[in-house]
């Protein structure tokens, strides 16, 4: 837009930009700098800030060589290994259904999306009760088909799978709509050619649909790993990291170091390690994508 350079224009530009500049510099860039600095100090919230000492990379070394870190990484990886295939399967499945036209399509779409708009706190409170050992909904359903369900959240082995089930329930609707958008962009003539060749439904799915939406599937995996490494609300409400630390994850650790033990230096170092992990996991994904993602279409 052409508007002559005047003092009024300069002033207006400054006014428009100022709030967001305060936000981005004050609550995003400055904090990053602050966090980097705290992470090499023994900053403790219970002590005055002047008592803060430079400790070099002690916090990082302490975290990475401690016995807790491999466990936390293990729990997070367990979460990802269970969650990723399930969420891909359910969201692609749901999207394939949403891509068809049928009676009650709008209602179905709305229902699928309800768990997404539910807050994690409410969802976790409900799922805690659904997963309750004896009287819970899930175990009562399982007993109908003759399976005695585990104690889920009270069991060291089953707490994480329990959290994963709740997360898949909550997130499927969201990712299904993302997959649906990709499905809608497929050129219908691709299928016409396959019909002429006499390809069946399954063949069309694996040979046409999935390769054509592979960029979106890739995006889903990347996003889910980034979010999965930062899983928090569900864990804090449903298990609080328990039983016996069996579901302690990164953000839960950072939250407790910072706001229960007031070790701000240690918590800051932990959050940088988490950030580094996010970058590493994402970089690995981008490397692996060459093998299976198809950008030609």
């Amino acid at each position, binding site marked *: 837009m*052409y*508007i002559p350079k005047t003092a009024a224009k300069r002033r207006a530009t400054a006014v428009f930009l100022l*709030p*967001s500049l305060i936000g981005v510099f004050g609550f995003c860039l400055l904090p990053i700098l602050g966090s980097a600095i705290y992470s090499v100090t023994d900053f403790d919230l219970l002590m005055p800030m002047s008592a803060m000492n430079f400790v070099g990379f002690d916090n990082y070394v302490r975290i990475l060589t401690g016995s807790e870190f491999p466990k936390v990484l293990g729990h997070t990886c367990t979460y990802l290994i269970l969650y990723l295939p399930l969420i891909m399967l359910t969201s692609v499945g749901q999207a394939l259904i949403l891509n068809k036209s049928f009676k009650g399509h709008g209602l179905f779409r709305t229902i699928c999306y309800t768990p997404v*708009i539910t*807050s994690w*706190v409410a969802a976790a409170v409900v799922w805690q009760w659904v997963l309750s050992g004896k009287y819970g909904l899930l175990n009562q359903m399982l007993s109908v088909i003759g399976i005695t369900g585990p104690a889920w959240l009270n069991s060291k082995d089953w707490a994480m799978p329990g959290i994963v089930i709740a997360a898949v329930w909550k997130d499927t609707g969201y990712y299904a709509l993302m997959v649906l958008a990709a499905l809608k962009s497929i050129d219908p003539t691709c299928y016409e050619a396959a019909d002429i060749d006499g390809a069946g439904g399954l063949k069309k799915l694996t040979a046409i649909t999935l390769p054509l939406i592979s960029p979106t599937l890739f995006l889903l995996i990347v996003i889910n790993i980034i979010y999965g490494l930062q899983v928090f609300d569900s864990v804090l409400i449903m298990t609080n990291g328990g039983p016996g630390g069996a579901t302690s994850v990164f953000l839960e650790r*950072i939250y407790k170091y910072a706001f229960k033990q007031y070790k701000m230096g240690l918590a800051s170092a932990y959050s940088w390690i988490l950030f580094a992990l996010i970058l590493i996991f994402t970089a690995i994904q981008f490397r692996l994508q060459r093998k299976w993602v198809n950008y030609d279409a």
Partner: protein
Amino acid sequence: MMHDTPAGRKVFRSVLFYLMLCVIVLLTVLPFVWMVSSSFKGSEAIRTIPIRWIPEHPTVEGYERVFNMQGFSFARASLNSLILAVACTLVAVMSASMAAFVFAKLPFRGSGKLFGLYLATMMIPGTVTMVPNYIILRILGLLDTYTGLILPSLANAFGVFLMRQSMMSVNDSYLESAHLDGASLYRIFFQIMLPLVMPTLATMILLSFMGSWNSYLWPLIVLTSNDKQTLQVVLGNMNGIYKNNEHVLMAGAVLTILPILAVYLISQRYVDQGISLGGLK
């Protein structure tokens, strides 16, 4: 076999399709039904085998106890959540669209680089900024205040990006002719630009409102006084207090979900649009 004939196979497949549909709907809805059903039961009636979906003696005891908690006021927390969600949304949307207007229509030397910096901040996970933001609020004396809770909403790089995209597509001639008619840039922004990007604006307002209403970690950290708590934090606290009174918890969950569900149902169109824009979670 019936499904060996082409017509039979078609019927078989559509039966299979609707069966799958029912299973998905059931799996999605059952936890909600279970929540509502439990919320109208008494403390003993919730523990039955087999499940009684329709309570034998429906009671609102759970709801009464939600509204008569020691130390927390659920009604107050609902009001707090509403006020905060509206305020955060207003701040986030206004600051983002004002900045987007500059990036889209009032470029200056270095504005491209500044926008690049904005985009770069989107990569930083909230985890890293959480601790230092808390400390900034502490230094400013804004802990346990609504101002402190709302302030970080000013930084909304994703919103700037979304609004900029939309504003770029607005034809310059509308704005230029308004300028020639003597309208100030503020007027052009509020009376011409914002109405023209209304669909994107509405989407952003909704996503931002739902995000603020549902947010948990940030209010949990910043707010410490009981009377300032948000609904999500109060529900989280109730989870510890009413461990064995699930009907109270379920009543609390119903009351937390209902308002946002209503907002969603009324404005579904814009929310769906947000997802196709690569929207927020």
